[in-house]
């Protein structure tokens, strides 16, 4: 969406990953978002996460709805196919795409207007359907593209730049996702790349529906001290339930941690995440416990972040439906058409 094309220059000393690609190979077109927008930090985190993991860019499908958030897919992984669909309907498009070819990585990018208002129904139902994907909400509590109306994730009492105060309780997409059966739920902050990058990596590798609610301040319309989604409030009230490291499959684990507070979680493909919990009584495997911690912090005006909940025992839609091993989009006449002999028998049942 830019009038300025991005320079193609690559620094000769840029590090390459296992595929021989540099970070530049994971970039997208030049951003057209406002300077300092949290969403650009999300793009940067995705680029870093994918490059570090040596993800093949063309094996990723980026799908979004409408809004500032939904422009993000244009700004990372230009070699991946993208689909900027209609407002609030990314979940259905992602569902169909995933059914058609289960072998790609699916990254859904949405916003708080897109997922918590116009698309709340679709959000709930994609969680229920256990689509194997990473679903990101870039959450700024405001409608940026229409110039700063409050969104449904704006906290009660939060104020936008124009002074409009939120009179209603906020919808918390992370707790909703946990309630509805998402098997990987995290919350992070666009400003905290150290936390966000390993969460993105773990979310991509998690088999099942992974959801990350990323607080991503809108510098233009919702970054005042009176806004709970601004940089200041987020930094002030930000609490990590655990610190997280993503450990790729083949890396030997060398660091040692103090016992009790460290959890190693092995992901589907053999890679792992290490959680360094800040408290002993927090258990990310326990739904009620996770919800309790999120809500307890909320009462104190704090935002619980990090990996909030994980369940590695659920099946994804393809497993639930027991679909064929080969992707549907690779099947042709031979696999799909029963032929005229079968039809002749079927005709006989209508005589």
């Amino acid at each position, binding site marked *: 969406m830019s009038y300025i094309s991005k320079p193609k220059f690559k620094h000769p000393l840029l590090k390459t990953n296992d595929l021989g690609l540099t970070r530049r190979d994971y970039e997208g077109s030049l951003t057209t978002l406002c300077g300092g927008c949290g969403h650009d930090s999300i793009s940067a985190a995705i680029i870093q996460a994918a490059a570090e993991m040596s993800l093949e860019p063309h094996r990723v499908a980026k799908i979004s709805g409408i809004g500032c958030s939904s422009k993000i897919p244009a700004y990372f992984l230009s070699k991946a196919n993208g689909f900027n669909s209609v407002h609030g309907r990314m979940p259905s498009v992602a569902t169909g795409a995933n059914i058609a070819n289960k072998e790609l990585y699916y990254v859904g990018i949405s916003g708080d207007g897109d997922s918590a208002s116009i698309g709340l129904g679709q959000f709930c139902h994609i969680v229920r359907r256990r689509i194997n994907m990473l679903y990101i909400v870039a959450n700024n509590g405001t409608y940026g593209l229409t110039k700063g109306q409050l969104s449904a994730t704006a906290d009660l009492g939060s104020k936008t730049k124009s002074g409009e105060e939120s009179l209603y309780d906020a919808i918390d997409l992370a707790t909703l996702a946990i309630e509805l059966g998402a098997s990987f739920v995290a919350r992070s902050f666009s400003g905290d790349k150290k936390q966000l990058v390993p969460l993105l990596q773990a979310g991509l590798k998690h088999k099942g529906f992974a959801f990350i609610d990323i607080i991503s301040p809108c510098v233009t319309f919702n970054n005042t001290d009176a806004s709970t989604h601004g940089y200041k409030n987020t930094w002030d009230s930000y609490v990590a339930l655990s610190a997280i490291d993503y450990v790729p499959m083949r890396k030997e684990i060398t660091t040692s941690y103090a016992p009790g507070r460290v959890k190693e979680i092995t992901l589907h493909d053999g890679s792992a995440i290490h959680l360094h919990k800040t408290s002993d009584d927090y258990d990310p495997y326990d739904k009620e416990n996770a919800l309790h911690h999120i809500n307890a912090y909320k009462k104190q005006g704090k935002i619980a972040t990090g990996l909030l909940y994980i369940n590695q025992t659920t099946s994804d839609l393809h497993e639930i439906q027991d679909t064929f*091993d080969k992707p549907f989009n690779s099947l*042709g006449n031979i696999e799909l058409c029963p032929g005229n002999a079968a039809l002749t028998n079927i005709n006989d049942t209508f005589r």
Partner: protein
Amino acid sequence: MPKIIQTSKVSSITKINDFVVKFANVNGSGSASANTMFAKSIFRMGIPVSPHNIFPSNIQGLPTWYEVRISEAGYLGRREGVDLMVAMNEQTIKKDIEAVVPGGYVLYDSSKTLPNELVRDDVHYLPIPLKDICLREYDKPNQRQLFKNIVYVGALAAFLKIDFKILTDIVSDQFKGKERLILPNVHALELGHQYASDNFECPLNLQLKHSNKTAANILIDGNTAIGLGCVYGGATVASWYPLTPSTSVVDAFSSYCHRLRIDPGTGKKKFSIVQAEDELSAIGIAIGAGWNGARAFTATSGPGISLMQEFLGLAYFSEVPVVLFNIQRVGPSTGMPTRTQQGDLLACAYASHGDTKHVLLFPSSPKECFDFAADAFDIAERLQTPVIVMSDLELGMNEQICDPLQWNDKREYDRGKVLSAEALESIQRYGRYLDTDGDGIPYRTYPGTHPEKGSYFTRGSSHDAYAAYTEDGNVYAEVMDRLALKMRTAVKYLPKPEITAQGKHRLGMLYIGSTQSAIQEVQDNLAKKGINLNTMRIRAFPFHEEVKQFIDQHELVFVIEQNRDAQLKTLLKIECNINEQQMCSILSYNGVLITPTHIEQAILQTMPKLTHSN
């Protein structure tokens, strides 16, 4: 016991293989399967038969009718007037008896005396104590209810001379796998047959005689044929939201997939069916799957079409193939959900905001439902755009006689212009929306095909030939012009209109879809009166050149359609630049299938206004 109860002063009508039997029932009483059995037995006797369900939007307790036209001549349209009424519903019995033609018959349950005001002296009554017979024969309340229906079918077999062996065969077929149900049903048929034979002079003057007119045919409903067509057409993804009268499309797809699409080696499914949370999601899923290279469809009706508008615009503009079956019902709004109409033509042809246009197919028989369902996937992928198959409740939910379904085993799916990794290698710079061939159809890639080439950003926002966002008005206009060109190219891939031009007549009839059932009869009846008409059945939109030619070749063309606002005529005016004076609308929008009589009368009324005789 008296052999026949003669309540009529007039002689009874005498007809062989040419009459109408109507069943008036209470819905939820189990009448549907008995009535179907009746129609099927006539079909198996080789006699053309067309049953029509006229049912309420309700599960139990409201009136429902099943109207069976029997016609040796092969006329399958609805005929007004009833020759034999099976009056099983006390709520409607007065009107039902009134509908019987003089000299016709009323079969009723005489367990209760018929009130005097319901006795007409110009029809014959066939009283059968159905309730008493079933009370005597059966212990369980549900059997007493259900078998009443079978008993009256047994009685009809005696009255009309239905081949009893055929009836019992149908029972055996129907309960295959539930054999313990066969004997009680056959017994119920025998009870009815026996009672009628003992108490009346059987058969009546309305009679059935074995024929050979249906030997090659099948009796199937349009929705089942569509479901099967989707299996044959290679659909792997069905996403839908339940909506009458489209529901049985996905039911049929599901049932045939479970038989025909399970991998024998692994037992895994080569299909996925998602019952979505609403119609927006239903079409969104189909579009997502289509974008990613799977053949996907959704089925809906009017209210669903309204909800799908935004997504249809996206698929049109971003050029994603998707197939949509619209089983039309009566609108606007909730309308009459269980009645038929052709009321969504304009809503579908130009669905969504901005300049859009969509490919529509108009099947007119179950066979064509099957063919068009399979073809729709080829057309959608060839053109990279939505294809909407416009059926209706009449065609979708009623069994109809048609030619058997056929598949050419040599046929290969037309997946359209899709570039493989090898093909991408030889291309300097790939442009998703470049019109390389000059036909308005660009080349697409499936996501994930090639590491370096072929990826693009699909969007509903304005884009250039390389799929990049643009607000340059000229670039936008170029894309819109190419899309218009693509729609002109589309015609080449669409089924041509079917024309019967028997001579140089001045008059023509133009119609679509289920109206077909009436046309032959109209033509024959009017020919007897010296009025000869050529006909054209349009099978697709955008229209072929032949459509305009046909209209131009005639002094007046009757445009026959089942809606209030002459939507087909409007489309013809917009798209073909036709002089309004050359077209005369014949419209029917009472929720039931248009009848030949309605069309004939409309034409006869117009005739004197024409300057010359035909």
